Structure formats: structure tokens, C-alpha cells
């Protein structure tokens, strides 16, 4: 029994990840559809409500996520080139970007929460229907996106640990690829969330 070989199917593993990404696209797609219909119905309210959002923070987070997407893609190249040090640096930059994003979100949400501008408060109840819908969708969509970002970061921490341990190497790196795919999904969703929520006019 000296020749036990682990069954490996990288193509299958990646296809599985893609199928999962499809379900995620449809999940967020459903929310975008609700947003589109409601925006169509309450155009003026949505426009007024979106002025409450800080475009600068939104734009900053867009840039941060784009950079992190690049570094995670580069980390795969580094692993393929057996450059463990580079892969570590690139993954650390990616995780740093995740932290910056969350800190931004903390200030952004914190500002609105301190104004009691969130679903269920007396202030929200007193606003027009379109406002309530906008902020409910805003909190739900950015909240769900943030949850995905945290999960993505956890997966990348695991990948980083495995890179350090040598378990992810130039021969075997499908976990990093799948973690990267998930991270890009987080970026993709934000690419649509940013203009729709922050720049509706």
C-alpha cells in the first residue's frame, strides 16, 4: 500500500466554485432587480436619499477593492513562480485592503446609525416611502456584501497560512484560485453597488 495517491480534480474544484458564484450572481441579481423596479417607481425619493451617502467613501472603497483584486490575482502568479515571499506580501496587501474597506464601512454606517437613519427608527418611519425603501435596500445590500467580504477574507487567511506552510505550492494551488475567484466576486458586486447606490441621479 505504498502507492496511495490523493484523488485530485482541480478542474472540477474550480467548476464547483464557478457554479457557486453563479448562485451568488443570481442572489445579488435578485436584489438589483428589486432595486431597479423600486428606483423606477420612486425616482425622486431615491435620488434625494442617495445624496445622504458619502460618494468619497464609496469611491475610496471601490479603489481599495480593485487594488485588492489585482493583488490576489498576482499572488496566484507568485505561487506559480514558486515565489513564496511575494505571494505572502501580495496576500497581506489584499487582507489590508479588506480591513481598510471595513474601517470605511464602520465610519459610513456609524454616521447613519448615529443619525438614527436605519430601518425601524422613528426618523425612518416619518420619511417618505421611497426613502425607507432606499435605506432598507442600502443596508441590506451593503450588509450582505460586507458579509461576503468577511468570508472572502477568512478564506484568504486560510490560503495565506497554507502558502506559508507550503501546502499551497506551484503544483497545488486550486484553493488559492478558488479563494481568489470568491474575492473577485466581492469586487464584482461592489462594481455594481457603487454607481447604483451612491451615484443615482
Amino acid at each position, binding site marked *: 500500500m505504498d502507492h496511495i*495517491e490523493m*484523488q*485530485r*480534480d*482541480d*478542474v*472540477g474544484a474550480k*467548476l464547483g466554485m*464557478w457554479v457557486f458564484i*453563479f448562485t451568488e*450572481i*443570481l442572489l445579488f*441579481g435578485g436584489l438589483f*432587480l428589486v432595486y*431597479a*423596479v423600486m428606483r*423606477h417607481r420612486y425616482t425622486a425619493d431615491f435620488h434625494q436619499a442617495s445624496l445622504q451617502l458619502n*460618494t468619497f467613501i464609496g*469611491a475610496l472603497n*471601490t*479603489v481599495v477593492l*480593485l*487594488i485588492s*483584486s*489585482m493583488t*490576489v*490575482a*498576482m499572488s*496566484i*502568479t507568485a505561487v*506559480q*513562480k514558486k515565489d513564496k515571499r511575494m505571494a505572502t506580501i501580495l496576500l497581506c496587501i489584499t487582507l489590508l485592503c479588506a480591513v481598510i474597506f471595513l474601517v470605511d464601512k464602520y465610519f459610513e454606517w456609524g454616521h447613519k446609525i448615529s443619525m438614527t437613519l436605519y430601518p425601524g427608527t422613528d426618523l425612518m418611519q416619518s420619511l417618505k416611502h421611497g426613502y425607507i425603501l432606499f435605506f432598507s435596500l442600502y443596508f441590506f445590500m451593503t450588509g450582505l456584501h460586507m458579509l461576503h467580504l468577511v468570508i472572502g477574507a477568512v478564506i484568504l487567511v486560510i490560503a495565506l497560512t497554507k502558502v506559508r506552510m507550503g501546502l499551497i505550492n506551484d503544483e497545488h494551488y486550486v484553493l488559492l*484560485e478558488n479563494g*481568489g*475567484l470568491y474575492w*473577485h466576486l466581492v*469586487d*464584482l458586486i461592489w*462594481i*455594481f453597488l*457603487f*454607481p*447604483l447606490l451612491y*451615484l*443615482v*441621479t
Partner: protein
Amino acid sequence: MTTEVKHITEYPVYAKVLIGLLVLTTFTILVPWLDLTAFTALIALVLASTKAGIVMTYFMHLKVEYILLKILVIMVLAIYVSVIILTFSDYIFR
């Protein structure tokens, strides 16, 4: 066991892709300032879709993936677009 052909994308390619994405982001931010009213949302969506396409092609390596996966991605997007069209045609012409 299925083995994969190893595609190595060089660092400068990713850097160029990032620059392209940042340029498109700048456009996205500037468009509402131009005050094109009716077209703002449309332009924003076109820019976002272009960016998403670039991310999927280069960062998510669809460019070098096998044809079946590309077809699957296109099919999922087609399903989503048809759902959008159906919903809006129902909503507008009701």
C-alpha cells in the same frame, strides 16, 4: 485525475488591467457631474458592465479557461438578462 494546463499571467498584465479599471472608475464618478439626466443611469450601467467584464476576463482568468466554462458564464448572464427584461416588461406594461 484531471490535470490542468498551467497558465501564468505576468504581473504587468494585471497592473495594466488595474489602471484600466481605475480609469473607468474615474469616468463612473464623473458621469453624474455631466448632468446627462436620462442617460446617466444607462452610462453608469454600461461602465459597470465593462468593468465587470474586464474583471471576469483577466482577474478571474476566463480568457484562458476552457470553452464550456465560458458558455456556462454566458448562459447564466443570459438567464439574468431575460429575467430583467421579463420583470420590466411586466412592470411597465401592466
